[in-house]
């Protein structure tokens, strides 16, 4: 990790200073570890809330039901109950699975998502690292997820899993390119890949009425078209409706995770939610001003809270889509990806480049 001269002080340095280790090598290592541990735990805690509780409550709201309400206030203790239940189940290892690939797949998936959070500026000074190529790093580690899906699908010795794995690859390739190309249009605006810089650029005013009522230059406002493209591509990237083809419960049972039970299932489940949150974090950073408040008057609320709100909004959107949009077929998915999204995202990139080149 190269020490950074400019930009805000990062979380590891702060922790190192706080516990009095200074900015030596020891301070960097210990501070980094503690900071990583903290961020990972925040994300895991959010997943724990999202998976067993929030998802159920949200789905229930869409379907006129109540959902968990028996254990604890608002049924919140279901989180603990579910954790105990899932972890105490027997881990069934089917005959003929390809170990250790079968064991590694469920570890890689959450790990890849957690790594991505390392470069996300979460506001209130919470950022693990701020490399100059932060955006590329985030996309790179997030893409490792498809490797996990393929590994799990292939190693399970199950035809449904295999089909799920293959679908996952086809889908990820088809949608990662539009995703990154759309992100590139943001980079053209900002001229940097550094996450903190991308956020900083968006802080400038787009429309300023009074100092308190200033609408910032978020790229969702500057280029809504790219925002929508990115949202859709992201939905496919994290495999949510209408693009939950790799799992497709009514077609291929549960896709790549058919044969996973107990702890491994929990890891897959965690990984999926972490990916939704990582997708949300990327959307927030690239298009919604990161941890910034929408208007200056609301800046009394800390940036980290704004960041969480934005992530959860994206999570809510995935659940909303799940309740209302049918799954597309695999060939339609690829059609949309290669013939639609790819073309549109390149068009968006070229247009942005022209506009930026001419006007700015």
């Amino acid at each position, binding site marked *: 990790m190269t020490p950074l001269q400019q930009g805000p002080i990062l979380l590891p340095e702060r922790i190192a200073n706080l516990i009095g280790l200074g900015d030596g090598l020891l301070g960097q290592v210990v501070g980094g570890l503690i900071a990583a541990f903290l961020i990972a735990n925040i994300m895991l805690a959010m997943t724990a809330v999202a998976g067993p509780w929030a998802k159920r409550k949200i789905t229930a709201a869409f379907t006129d039901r109540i959902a968990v309400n028996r254990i604890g206030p608002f049924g919140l203790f279901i989180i603990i109950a579910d954790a105990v239940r899932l972890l105490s189940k027997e881990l069934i290892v089917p005959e003929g699975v390809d170990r250790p690939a079968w064991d590694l797949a469920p570890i890689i998936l959450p790990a890849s998502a957690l790594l991505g959070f390392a470069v996300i500026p979460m506001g209130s000074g919470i950022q693990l690292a701020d490399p100059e190529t932060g955006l590329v790093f985030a996309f790179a580690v997030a893409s490792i997820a498809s490797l996990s899906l393929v590994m799990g699908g292939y190693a399970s010795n199950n035809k449904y899993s295999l089909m799920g794995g293959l679908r996952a690859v086809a889908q990820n390739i088809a949608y990662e390119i539009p995703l990154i190309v759309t992100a590139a249009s943001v980079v053209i605006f900002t001229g940097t890949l550094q996450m903190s810089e991308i956020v900083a650029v968006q802080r400038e005013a787009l429309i300023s009425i009074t100092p308190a009522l200033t609408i910032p230059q978020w790229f969702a406002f500057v280029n809504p078209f790219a925002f929508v493209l990115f949202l859709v591509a992201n939905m496919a990237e994290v495999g949510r409706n209408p693009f939950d083809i790799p799992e497709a419960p009514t*077609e291929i049972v549960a896709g790549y995770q058919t044969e996973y039970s107990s702890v491994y299932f929990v890891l897959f489940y965690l990984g999926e939610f972490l990916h939704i949150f990582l997708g949300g974090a990327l959307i927030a950073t690239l298009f919604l001003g990161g941890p910034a408040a929408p208007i200056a008057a609301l800046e009394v609320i800390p940036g980290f809270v704004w960041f969480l709100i934005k992530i959860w909004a994206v999570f809510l959107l995935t659940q909303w889509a799940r309740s209302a949009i049918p799954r597309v077929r695999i*060939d339609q998915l690829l059609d949309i990806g290669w013939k639609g999204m790819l073309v549109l995202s390149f068009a968006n990139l070229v247009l942005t480049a022209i506009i930026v080149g001419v006007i700015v």
Partner: protein
Amino acid sequence: MSLERPKDRDSAGVQRHSADEIADLLGDLVIGREEHINAPGYVIPPDAVQETLSLLKNEAGFDHLSCVTAEERADRYESIYHLKKFDDATQEVSVVVPTAKDNPVSQSAEPVFRTADWHEREAYDLVGIDYEGHPDLRRILLPDTWQGHPLSMDYDQERPQVVSLREGANPLQEDHRDDQDSETMYLNIGPHHPATHGVLHLKATLDGEQVADVDPDIGYLHRCEEQMCQNGTYRYQIMPYPDRWDYISAGLLNEWAYARAAEDLADIEVPEYAQVIRTMGAELCRIAAHMLAVATFALDVYGDFTAIFMYGIREREKVQNILEDLTGQRLMFNYFRLGGVVWDLPEPRDEFFDKTRDFLEELPEALEEFHDLITGNEILQARTIGTGVLPPEVAKSYGATGPVLRGSGVDYDLRRDDPYGYYENLDWDVCVEDGCDNFSRLLVRMNEVEESAKIIEQCVDILEDWPEDERNIQANVPRTLRPDDDTEIYRAVEGAKGELGIYIRADGTEKPARFKIRSPCFSNLQTLPEMSNGEYVPDMVASLGSLDIVLGEVDR
């Protein structure tokens, strides 16, 4: 005792053949005549089945092989082909094919009617008649290892049929992994799969994501309902069982199938008031069944227990509450009796009418919501239009009925074409869509819900105005019914899934000698390979959902 409808009633200008004209047409093929209550029967030799059936199909227009009944009599085996016309369901003919006891071999009707494929397999499986020229004569409902034919006379009920797994057929036995040249993949979809609507096993051969071939393997839920009915008395003991064929809230429709056959058999007149209640109850059941069909179809396409499924279940729940008030139960109604219904409307009647009317008032709004959610959704349209195509001629040949047939553009609804109950006096339409695809079948079901609501509304009005002293809910029927010896009847009603027919042969006792159920799902499921071969796996799942099968009725 003849309940034959007058022969001069001519519907839609379809040519009507008298029994003698048909005998002349068949000429020397006929070796004897029988008189079934529903239709004239022609006895033909076992090697002339194809010739006779093609004559009837091509020359006389009997293009609907409704059912194949096989039974063992004291001195012979018998296959009965119940033929109808799609253009006029009241024209019926029975072709009786006796075969010798020691060598029960009969010609297969499969080349003439594709639907005979499964029906004859079932006949072979349960009764033991051998069909010559059948493309694939193996057991269909029972496991391959089963010994004996359960509905034959010398079948040993006591004999254990336990077969160890090792002796049974193991679908995984063949190891295809080393088969390097193979371009296809064999996949067992089911018996435990989220989208098979019960325990259905589809032996699918996939070419990549596309279905190269699919062979439905049924019988996991086989309870031999036919034999259960043969062991019950006409008057009481059979009626609870029809609820359990199509157990997804179509109970009253099923009960009506038995009631209609048995009432015509025993010459029982049903009071008009009871007919109105029956009509209303049956249509409530149809709404409940179609709501579930739409909900599960959405589930198959959407992929999760999401909004549409829950909204569909919610509407169905309201219907079930009304049915509970009326019949006392939510699924297993046992509400019809021979000669009427068991209970009058619940007191206070106004409350019941209000509740029903409230439901009917809210229904259009709910349906509008469904149209917003499902049929108006572009992705769903992209998923369903043009997939699972079932051309009308193929559908007819397979004996598909109900919304599946009407989704293929064939205007055939027994409620109108072979009127029973109070339908004739009500104002409603038959819903037909000619898209032949999954979307049309979905639309037919949703439109039929509207039509059913119309029927119920009219029934409620009629019931409300019915004079209090004329509320006769049941005819006076003896406690023991013994229909005359050797009378046979085949009668069908329009169930939720299609034509639900019952064949009964009486032998002078209080229990039927042969009770055969013509299940609409059984025939409809047979079309699945036609619809899904060459399509993608998700489309096959959607097609299966659009067929709306209930395994309880397929396997009986």
